[in-house]
Every structure is written in C-alpha cells, then in structure tokens.
C-alpha cells in the first residue's frame, strides 16, 4: 500500500495540475498577506477559499485521477496485490498530495510573514487542519463515486453534485428548515445538523476561533459552550474523522466486490 501511495504521490506532485494547485494557493496567500497585512483578516478571507475550493478541487481531481489512471489500476490488479491496498494507496496518495499543496501553498507565505510571532497561530492551525480534513473527505468521496460509476460523464456529474450539495444546497435546506421550524427551540437541532456536513462543521470550527463575538450572542452561546470546550472540539474533530473513515471504508468494500 505504501509503495502505491508513494508512487501516486510523486506522480501527482510532479503533475501539471498539482503544481497549479500549489501555485494558486501560494499566489493567493502571498497577495492577500501583502495587500492587507493583517494576519487575522487573511485567515478569514482564506477561510472562504479553503471551504469552497478544497472540496471542489479534491472531488474533481479525485474523479479525474481515478479515470485517467484506470489502465494502470488494471495493470496493478493483475498483480498479486491486495485490492484494498491498491485503492487505499491511490486514495491516500491523492489526498496527501492535495494536503501537501495546501500546506505549502498557505503555510509558506505565513511562515515568511512571521506566523510564529503572532497570536493568530491557533486560528491558522485550525484553518489548515480543516483544509486537510476536507481534502481527505472529498477525495475519498470522489474515489467512491468513480469506483461506482464506470461512465465518466456520470461520475463527473455526480462529483459536482456532491460538492454542490455540501457547499450550497445543504445550507439552503438547513436554512429553510430553520425558518419553517422557528417556533421550536432549534439550538441542538442546528448543532446536530452541522455535524452532518463537513463543510459546515469546518466553518463553525474556524468561526468559533475568529468571529466569536457575533456567534456568542443568542444561539451562538450554545455552540460556543459546546464547541468552545476541549470536549466539544474533540467531538467535532471526531465527526470530521468519521467523515474521512466512512468513504475510505466504503471504497474498500466496493473495491473488494467490484468486477473489473
């Protein structure tokens, strides 16, 4: 598994798309830091980019990579290697390469800017961690979709739909339900509802570190009380971890049964 992962990783890191992704983050972070000069504001601006872009790139790139390396995968399948090793290796390689691009692309400019001297280091840390989690979650989902669908068009369509669902549609339905059910106490409902969407969960985690004053009022107090504590944060990260494990496990199950 490690060998396949390493191969995938080096293949992707040297590929044009991988470099482009890295370059984009480098350029964006550098220019944001250079223009605003305020580390905490840059973290907020980056938050939106990371929350939208990381899942999108991960899911699209994952599907693309799977379809493109199909011949190589078939070759590997002919060898005496365990199936789960092949697919997990590829999946981990992909997710790691995306994470490394994110880490370097966002991390290097911040380091240059003197991150360790500033008080924003924890905010930055949460931003990067959630970004890495999102990369893992959505590349896992991408692999699952690609494994299920041999039809490329269908696969790409589904991938985009999944991203759209978590990034936009879910929030829309969530908001609608909040308005429709507004006569009931909704604090706990909304807390549970965010757990079911990794993007929402990441956003709340970052916001609690940044925008506390706004969230603290009214409903936010419940969130803060829960997620602001060590236990709550641990639980939120556990939920994110579950979001990583679930697709990975499904990949294995599907890979074992699939007829190539």
């Amino acid at each position, binding site marked *: 598994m490690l060998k396949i992962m390493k191969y995938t990783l080096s293949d992707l890191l040297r590929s044009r798309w991988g470099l482009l992704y890295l370059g984009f983050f480098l350029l964006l972070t550098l220019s944001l830091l250079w223009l605003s000069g305020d580390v905490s504001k840059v973290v907020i601006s980056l938050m939106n980019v990371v*929350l939208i872009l990381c899942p999108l790139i991960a899911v699209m790139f994952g599907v693309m990579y799977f379809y493109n390396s199909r011949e190589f995968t078939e070759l590997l399948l002919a060898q005496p290697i365990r199936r789960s090793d092949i697919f997990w290796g590829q999946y981990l390689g992909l997710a790691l390469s995306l994470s490394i691009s994110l880490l370097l692309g966002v991390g290097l400019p911040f380091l240059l800017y003197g991150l360790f001297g500033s008080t924003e280091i924890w905010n930055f840390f949460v931003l990067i961690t959630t970004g890495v989690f999102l990369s893992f979650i959505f590349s896992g989902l991408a692999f699952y979709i690609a494994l299920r669908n041999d039809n490329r068009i269908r696969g790409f369509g589904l991938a985009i739909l999944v991203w759209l669902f978590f990034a936009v549609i879910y929030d829309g339905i969530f908001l609608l339900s909040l308005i429709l059910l507004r006569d009931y106490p909704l604090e706990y409902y909304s807390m549970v509802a965010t757990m079911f969407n990794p993007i929402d969960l990441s956003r709340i985690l970052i916001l609690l570190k940044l*925008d506390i004053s706004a969230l*603290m009022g009214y409903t*936010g107090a419940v969130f803060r009380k829960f997620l602001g504590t060590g236990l709550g944060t641990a639980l939120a990260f556990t939920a994110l971890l579950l979001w990583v494990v679930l697709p990975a496990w499904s990949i294995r199950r599907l890979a074992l049964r699939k007829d190539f």
Partner: protein
Amino acid sequence: MTLRVSILLLLLGWAFAGAAATIEVCAGCKVKTITEAIQQATAGDIVLIKSGFYAEGNIVVDKPLTLRGEGYPVLDGRMTEEALTITADSVTVEGLKIQNSGHNQLKDLAAIRVQRRKDYIIRNNILFNSFFGIYLEYAGAGIVEGNTIIGKAESEMNAGNAIHAWYVNNLTVRNNHLSGHRDGIYFEFVSDSHIHDNRSTGNVRYGLHFMFSNDDAYYCNIFDQNGAGVAVMFSKRITMTDNLFEHNWGRAAYGLLLKEITDADILRNHFTDNTLGIMLEGAARIRYENNVFKSNGWALQISGGCEDNHFTRNNFLNNALDLVVNGRANNNSFDGNYWSEYNGYDLDRNGNGDVPHRPVKLYSYILTQAPEAIVLLRSFFIDLLNFSEKISPALTPDNVLDNRPLMQPVS
C-alpha cells in the same frame, strides 16, 4: 451692633476651630473610636483616622465634618451593618477602606449612604465586598471621585450597585473604578449630573444605568466586560461622548441600550467587540456622529418605534452585520457614513460613493426571523443570498440606505 459683633466672633471662632481642630483616632490615641470622635467634634473639624481596624457597626456622621483616613484604615461592617451614614451637609469622606458592609435586600444597606443632604465629597476610598457601594438618596450637589468599589456579585438578584443615586441633582461622578456589582453606576431620577473618566468593568448587569434621569452627560468613560455596557432608559437629553464600550458580550449583551429615550447626542464613542453595538428601542431624536463601530457582531439593531435617529460620519468597520432593522425604516437616516463593506465606486472623486449603500442584508432579515440561522454565518450559501438580494432588493426595507457613503474612513 452687639449682635453683629457676636455673630462675627462666632464665625471667627468657627473658622478658627475649623482650621485647627483635628481629632486623631487610633488604637493608641486619646480617642479610640470614630463614633467617639464624631461626638466630640464640632462642625468643620477634621477626624483623622490612622491606619487600623475599626468595626464599630453603623457610624452616623451628623455634623459637617471631614473624615480622613491615613494609610487606608479599615472600617468593617461585619456583614450586618451599614458602615457610614451621612446625615449632614458638607461632609467629606476620604482615604477610607470600607469592607463587608451588610447585605440586606429590604434595607438596601450600603457602605456609604448620603441621606437628604448636599455638598458631600466622597473621595479616594476603597470599598470592598459591599452590597451597595455608595448610596445617595434625595441628595443635592456633591462629588464622588477616585473611589475603587469592588464587589463580589454573582447574580443580578443578590447584588447591589456600586454607585446608586436616587433623586439626586448636580452630582459629579469621576475617576472611579467600579467592578463586581450589579450596575457600576445606577441613576434614577438624577438630573444635571456628570459622569466622566470612570472605568466600569465586570459588573453583572450594566456598567452604567439611567432610569428616568434627564439632562445628564457622561464622557470619557470605559465600559468593558459588563453584562451590558450602558443602558439608558426612559430618559431625556442625555449626552454621551468619547466613551469606550468594549467586550460586552453574551447572549443578551450590548454596548449601549437605548430604550424610550429622546433628544440625545451620541458622539465620538468607540464600540469594539460587542455582541451588539447599539440596541435601539423607542429611541427618538438622537444624533450619532463620529462613532466607531469595530468588530461587533451586530453594530446597530433598530427595533420598532424609533424615529429621527440620524447617523452621520460614523465608521462601521468589520462588523459581522452592520445593521438590523425590524419593521420599517421610519425617518431614520444613515447618510454619509463609512462602511467597510461598501464596494461601490466614486467616479467624480468627491469622497462620496456614487452608488447608495444598503447596510441591511438579507441575512440580517433572516436572523430576525430565525435567530438560529446564525450558524450559517459566512457560509457560501448566505453570501449568494446576500448578493442576489443586493442586486434586486425584495425582502429588505428599500428605504434604509446610505445615499452618499464615504469612500475613506472618518479619522
């Protein structure tokens, strides 16, 4: 003739006595208790209290005296009694440390009480663990300055105010440090009074609280980390300038609450890191100029019945939401402010944006309907909603806008 001479002599005698008579109180002195010293003293005398521990129960000051502490002598109320009750005009109390005065809901016990008298000066005292700190009732002109009043309040129900004024006029409260009480300063039926350079912090309810008080001014104060900064209720003609409202946050926290007040001026204040900068309910004829609203959750929330509120030359910087308006805009105006969210242009370079700014977002409207929607703050979906609403307003009030938003922040 003889009458005049005798009056003159009497006055001279008073003046002489006033200048000379200093009664020292200490454990080793001739006079050992403060009560005894007050009994011996004549009007105008100075009672000099040396450092030491005095637990004499309730001390009544019924003559115009100066009570002066040296090295902060401790007056202890033993948790049952009021330490000092002032029932004479022209009493000065300074340099005392008063602690553990009684807690009593029925009698509203205080560390220092002034009853129906004027020209008092309460200066540079330290009051610790009192129920009410300084309680002024039916009092005339006086000064409360340089005191440090620290309480141990935990809930609104079981706490008194640090400085409590009830039916007072021409009062000056300055340079005090107030914390750990229900309200830092409480004014009820207080008129023509000034509050300045105080710091009110960590109080359970309000940093400063006005009820039915007219023609007062507060300026250059700091209100931070209170349940809520300042509440001005049922009052008229209050001037609020150069204050700092900071870190007042929590479920129902705001920097400044205006409830049923009219004809006020709110100028050059800073509102930073509050859950809600200013909350308006039934506020009318108020001018807001040169204030700075920075990093608040909501900068302004305007509820029903607010008329003639005019906002100009204020800075709205990086608030999660600048303005929430319940109901219609009435005739409040928001022209000529700087909004950090404004993204219009200024082609004629006159410093004012050419496109009106709409400070009310669709999201803030949704929040008034379903407050739980706060969990979607800064999400992509909300950004989309706000954007589409901005292009064609359907739900947000269309007459709440800044017709000439500033391009640069007001310095």
